[in-house]
């Protein structure tokens, strides 16, 4: 088969905050230093910039200020400045406000943004620099020569659901580069592959993830002032379920409402999407949303393990930045600025290494040195144990978080976390295949006004895929029906926020896993949370996926 090839100096995989910051920094260095111009390309699986970008989001503008000092003049979409912070502990019927806002949750000087719009704007800045930005192309495989990264192969197009080539078949393109910067986001499929093939995670703790669900609402006027930021703990989660909610009031009566649950809850029949529904039914929340309209929905995993779970981020010919590396501050609930900062540093490192004529791991280690000398480490290192402390429950975690703030992170030994799915409990023997037909253990009423079933919600994610293509969720169904079903009752049906996994019945009643792959919103939760690691998320044909306009 004849494959097209493209050769560049720097290839950036993923056009989110990290990848676009890297691209922009490269362009800036290029114009500062002159010389033989470097060719830079960015590949992005979404149809257009920002379509797969989902976050709360409150933006700490520190990295933006450094990257684009005149961001206001350039029209950065950051209209809503935070003017009030509230933190509440919810009980089933009421709320208790924290008398003081814990320092990590103070948002003075930050902005409530739509990450979708922000990324779209960043992409415009990048394209204005003449950088090739290929949207609708998913990086499918890492190209390696021994332990050296030489580029990526993009996915084939025009393959039907049986794997046969359609008349429209186009083979993927091999893009080779001196340095490839992996910014493929949380649980990125290529970064996952790197961690499997190279000893990057040796001596590091396992990454710990959470799932975030979000809705955008239009609410009646005068409910809440734009610029108000609220976070909650407690109801509807039990103390052994980590998580909480956010409510961000934007201009034009838009309200961003979201719920985050640690992917380390013990009950396999717990459903994060139902927890979100229950949260919205709390009188405090329903009084904000009542008579409003849900206009968008989305879900995405987030890496919460912190400093000690970040793998080695440099290798021969490769760097990892942003969520792909786990650069997120779970205590501040923020990662966009760290993604931008690490992207920016990765761009600098790639530039220097190429100019020095040496893109080996030894040369690219400069990236780690830059991170260590930057605000990234200053911010993440002191809170490196906090998320792990929540493994002991909500109260232990909160107490530890307080200590960490007071001592600036001093603690005699580092706490150890485990991969979240290992905490899932087995169901009583013989009940697994029965419970899957029942509602989730935390099910609540669905009225399709305030609370929604997953199928309705997923419509508002705008997700669309080419229908006639192979499933992009590779599942070893043998394990699923013989082991995971009986032991855990098919938890994929619960943790997937988009109704991708369903247990259908054959005419003789035997359960059969049905995969509705075209519902997928690319959140990666299944790849993370499935207890036997038998689900592998690979990118579907380029341009498929959610459409997070305004999210």
């Amino acid at each position, binding site marked *: 088969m004849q494959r097209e090839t493209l050769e560049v100096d720097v290839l950036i995989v993923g056009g989110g905050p990290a990848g676009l910051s890297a691209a922009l920094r490269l362009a800036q260095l290029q114009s500062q230093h002159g010389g033989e111009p470097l060719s830079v390309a960015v590949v992005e699986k979404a149809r257009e910039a920002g379509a797969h970008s989902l976050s709360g989001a409150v933006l700490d503008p520190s990295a933006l200020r450094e990257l684009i000092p005149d961001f206001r003049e350039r029209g950065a979409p950051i209209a809503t400045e935070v003017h009030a912070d509230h933190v509440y502990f919810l009980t089933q019927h009421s709320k208790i406000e924290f008398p003081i806002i814990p320092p990590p949750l103070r948002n003075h000087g930050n902005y409530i943004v739509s990450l979708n719009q922000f990324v779209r704007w960043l992409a415009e800045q990048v394209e204005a620099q003449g950088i090739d930005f290929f949207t609708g192309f998913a990086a499918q495989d890492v190209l390696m020569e021994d332990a050296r990264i030489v580029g990526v192969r993009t996915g084939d197009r025009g393959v039907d659901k049986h794997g046969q080539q359609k008349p429209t078949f186009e083979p993927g393109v091999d893009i080779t580069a001196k340095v490839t910067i992996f910014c493929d986001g949380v649980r990125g499929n290529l970064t996952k592959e790197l961690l499997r093939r190279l000893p990057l995670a040796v001596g590091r703790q396992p990454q710990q993830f959470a799932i975030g669900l979000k809705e955008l609402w239009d609410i009646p006027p005068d409910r809440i002032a734009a610029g108000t930021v609220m976070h909650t703990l407690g109801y509807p989660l039990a103390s052994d379920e980590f998580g909480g909610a956010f409510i961000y009031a934007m201009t034009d009566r838009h309200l961003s409402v979201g719920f985050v649950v640690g992917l380390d809850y013990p009950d396999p029949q717990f459903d994060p999407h139902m927890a979100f529904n229950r949260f919205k039914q709390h009188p405090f929340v329903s009084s904000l949303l009542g008579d409003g309209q849900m206009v968008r929905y989305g879900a995405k995993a987030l890496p919460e393990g912190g400093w000690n779970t970040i793998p080695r981020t440099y290798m021969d010919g490769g760097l990892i930045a942003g969520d792909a590396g786990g650069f997120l501050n779970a205590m501040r609930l923020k990662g966009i600025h760290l993604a931008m900062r690490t992207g920016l540093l990765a761009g600098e490192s790639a530039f220097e290494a190429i100019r020095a004529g040496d893109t080996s791991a030894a040369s690219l280690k400069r990236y780690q040195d830059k991170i260590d000398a930057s605000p990234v480490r200053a911010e993440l290192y002191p809170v490196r144990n906090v998320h792990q402390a929540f493994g002991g429950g909500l109260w232990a975690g909160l107490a530890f978080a307080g200590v960490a703030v007071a001592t600036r992170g001093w603690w005699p030994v580092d706490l150890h976390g485990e991969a979240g799915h290992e905490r899932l409990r087995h169901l009583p023997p013989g009940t697994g295949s029965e419970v899957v037909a029942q509602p989730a253990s935390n099910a609540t009423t669905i009225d399709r006004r305030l609370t929604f079933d997953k199928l309705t919600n997923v*419509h508002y994610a705008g997700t669309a895929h080419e229908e006639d293509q192979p499933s992009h969720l590779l599942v070893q169904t043998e394990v699923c029906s013989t082991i995971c079903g009986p032991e855990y009752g098919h938890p994929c049906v619960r943790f997937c926020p988009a109704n991708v996994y369903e247990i259908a019945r054959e005419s003789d009643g035997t359960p059969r896993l049905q995969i*509705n792959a075209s519902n997928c919103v690319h959140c990666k939760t299944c790849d993370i949370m499935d207890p036997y690691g038998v689900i592998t998320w690979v990118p579907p044909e380029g341009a498929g996926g959610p459409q997070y306009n305004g999210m």
Partner: protein
Amino acid sequence: MILVVAEQRDGRLNRATWETIAAAQALSANDMPMKVVALGASIGPVAQELAAAGVGEVVATEHEALATYTPDGFTMALRRVIESLTPTFVLLPHTYQTRDFAPVLAARMRASLITDVTGINGSGASATFARPMFQGKLAADVRPQGAAPFLVSIQIGAYRADTVKKGSAASITSVSVDIDAAAIRQKPEPPFQEAKQAVDLSQAERIVSVGRGIKSQENIAIAETMARAMGAEIAASRPICDNGWLPMERQIGSSGQTVAPKLYVALGISGAIQHLVGMKGARTIVAINKDADAPIFEVADYGIVGDLFEIVPALVKELEKA
């Protein structure tokens, strides 16, 4: 002046063209003159048909290079026609063909293009056009800006072909265009894949649609019997086509076809929003479902809460009596 672009193939006008004429009449409100342009290599009969219906002056545009549709050929020809006639509005049916060339035409002419319009408020130059946003969740009223012409494509089913007001026979003028055949970059091949009774559900007047409630592939026959008795096409919601019980081209909804028949009968369809967006434009919706809380009843004009395996045979019996 309003110019309607008729769509014909092999001398036959499609229903979407008549719907677009109905939209143009609403926009005109007897106030703005109307013309209809038809393109092809030899379109005498089509022009006659349009002229006989008396919907306004017919502009016949014939050229060898327009024998088969090509985006370059149609863009060049329509650009010439529009530039010589200087209409305020150009209305097109929102068909696959229009979707293919209209953006190019608008860009070449630096004209505004409002696509997939479902309704027109007001008339004449001050009209606003409703078009769906967020997959039908919102209807935005938009008004074109800048200088005429304004291109507007009309969603299939948004207007009804049978409401076209016919007048006394109109005149046919012909506008000649010279097209540089060498500048047409596309080389049309003979049509393929449409041979085997391909279904275009968007043209069906009656549809019987089945959902999960049908339970097994064998039971599809029950719905087919009903469809035959009614002279309806058979269609389905997503799970049925996913299971391969009916072919994909019969799927209605956000990942299938959008239809607006006169009558839509939903058998055992719960009415997930993904399905509703594909059929809520139907004039009359009849739903039969066991679950009284199913969302399909929120859009149904007539609903029967009950067992379709009892109700459908009874209905078929009555239909066959008629």
